[in-house]
């Protein structure tokens, strides 16, 4: 277990008492940022259960707002102020904020959330120079750190997991930290005190690779090119077999093509049989079909057939063959 992965885990390293400090949370991993926010909130409420909580986007702060928000409230003794989307803070309020950070109010916990990226970097630097009470970097773990993240989550819920089981969980669930954390908690709840082995995890998440393949296909069929490509890359990076992906595409387009030419007025059960899809899919198929013409479906199906052949050894680069398939299918949507 790497230190980095440990740091990402649910249990915080001992934090300074939050009141009278400024906590800066910066980084693109929204899940980790939110978790850090929640940690401050719970630390404050442990000190004062009646503390006020104010949550606001930085863009909404005008001149003088800082003083107003951090002044002692009439009824509560302590309060937490969470400011999100820090880069949106108007220029004119920068000085005020930096000044406050240098001398924070004793009964206020200020939490600043920055989503990462270059925007607002100067402000960040200035804040850091004030000697902030607590800085959290919410960098998403590298792919190879994810199993460690899972293991730390499991430990946090007082369970144990084998290394290969953690790896399998990552392959099955994906890189979404929220989903991974939820899966870890779920598994511990269901099997604790048993050690989580790969058999247990596999039993739990079998078929997940198929589910992921259908997600890619659905995104492409819905014309969400960026989402489809992103999911495709994830799938390829996590060892989802290419044939699962092509067959998910084939099956999605096949259902649409059959639906398009199905006789009108069929009962759902009959239509599902005609289309070759489970009844619960009919609604989403109807939705998808509104954006598809017969000629587009023809192009799409033929692109998938080509990709199927390519990934089976016809082409040099199967990943490229799949990306091209995703694009061709997405572009075939809605055109005549």
């Amino acid at each position, binding site marked *: 277990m790497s230190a980095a992965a440990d740091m990402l885990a649910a249990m915080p390293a001992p934090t300074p008492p939050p009141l009278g400090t400024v906590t800066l949370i910066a980084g693109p991993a929204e899940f980790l940022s939110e978790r850090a926010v929640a940690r401050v909130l719970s630390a404050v409420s442990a000190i004062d259960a009646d503390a006020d909580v104010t949550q606001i986007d930085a863009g909404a702060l005008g001149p003088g707002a800082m003083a107003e928000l951090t002044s002692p409230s009439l009824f509560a003794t302590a309060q937490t102020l969470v400011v999100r989307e820090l880069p949106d803070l108007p220029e004119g309020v920068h000085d005020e904020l930096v000044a406050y950070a240098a001398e924070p109010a004793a009964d206020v916990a200020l939490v600043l959330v920055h989503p990462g990226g270059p925007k607002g970097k100067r402000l960040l630097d200035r804040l850091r120079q004030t000697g902030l009470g607590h800085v959290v970097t919410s960098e998403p773990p590298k792919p190879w750190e994810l199993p460690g993240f899972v293991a730390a989550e499991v430990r946090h819920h007082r369970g144990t997991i084998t290394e290969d089981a953690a790896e399998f969980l990552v392959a099955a669930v994906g890189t979404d930290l929220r989903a991974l954390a939820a899966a870890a908690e779920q598994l511990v709840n269901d099997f604790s005190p048993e050690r989580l082995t790969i058999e247990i995890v596999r039993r739990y998440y079998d078929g997940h690779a198929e589910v992921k393949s259908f997600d890619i296909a659905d995104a492409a069929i819905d014309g969400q090119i960026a989402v489809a490509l992103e999911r495709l890359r994830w799938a390829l990076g996590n060892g989802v077999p290419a044939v699962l992906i*092509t067959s998910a595409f084939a099956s999605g387009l096949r259902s649409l093509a059959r639906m398009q*030419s199905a006789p009108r007025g069929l009962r759902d059960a009959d239509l599902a049989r005609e289309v070759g899809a489970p009844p619960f899919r009919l609604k989403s198929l109807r939705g998808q079909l509104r954006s598809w013409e017969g000629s587009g479906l023809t192009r799409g*199906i033929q692109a998938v057939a080509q990709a*199927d052949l390519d990934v*089976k050894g016809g082409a040099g680069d199967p990943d490229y063959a799949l990306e091209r398939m995703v694009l061709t299918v997405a572009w075939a949507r809605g055109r005549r």
Partner: protein
Amino acid sequence: MSVWDDLIGQEPLAHTLREAVAAARDRLSGGSGRGMTSAWLVTGPPGSGRSNAARAFAAALQCRDGGCGQCHDCHTALLGTHPNVTLVATDRLSIGVDSVRELVRSAALMPANGRWQVVVVEDADRLTEDSADALLKSLEEPSPRTVWMLCAPTAEDVLVTVRSRCRLLVLRTPSPPAITRMLVDRDGVPEVVAAFAARASQGHIGRARRLAHDEATRNRRREILRIPTSLIELGACMVAAANLHEVAQEEGQGVAATLDAKEVGDLEAIYGASARDGRARGYPGALSTLKKDQSKRRTRVVRDTIDGALIDLLSFYRDVLALQTGARTALVNDEVRADIDSLARRGSADSTLRRMEAVLKCREAIAANAAPLLALESMMLDLRV
């Protein structure tokens, strides 16, 4: 009736083999045996009867009457159960070096009946390079009584090292009249049915037999020939592909139903009573190998059935092209002349060529392990009228 009667429309080849049999007899009685060859490569298109020719030759070598077709030697040699005739047929994609080494060893044994040790390799195109190496020495310096018969679609399909050491026998595509005569004379098929089957089989004897004898095969063919004019819109294409795929799937299931359980039973018999409860050493491994082979065979039957259908489709479009270009040839699919005629009028020779290309592309895709249903759908969409 002799073993040579089985070689339909292959008169020149039968002549060569008869001479070789005479030379072989000469050598057995102490003569020079000039004209006898110990390594042969039999080539010809699928269904032309490569394996039959090789077996007929094997029978004639074992028979005391040069291939009477009646005696025990002839019967067992044709069936492949003769103790001195080894038939190598494979459902696998390649013939491994181990099995070839084993063959080479047994081929070198002196035949018990004092005649010939014949090895027939039905798919010599599936020899790997290592296997071919293992075979070479035996081809170059054969034991005095060993005869190798290698079969392949074309000489080019066989590794050149092997090919160059064999005498080549080329089978022709048998003509429709030759197939018709065979079906009438030997199988007692009515003339009209025989003529239809011969024409529709396009020179493939096994298919001609199935068409002549099996109504389900004729019905399936009729269904297939109805496809081209039915492909009017998207849905029809999807349905045609799904139906064809289902038929092929059923065919694969059928083979599985008749063969799989029997083979497992045979294997159990070999390993004895302890096989079932898993105590026999080696049994689980042998069983898993068998199951893998069976699943491969099922896949192959599915693909072969689809390929047969694609060949029928191709012949349909060839007929369309014949009408469009005014070529004066008999139509292979005369029974659907009306459909052929209507497609010929509706499109250009150019569009027909494009459709033929789509069918050929699909055949290649299926052979390259494409997902069969998807490949069929893609093709049907190209064939749309």
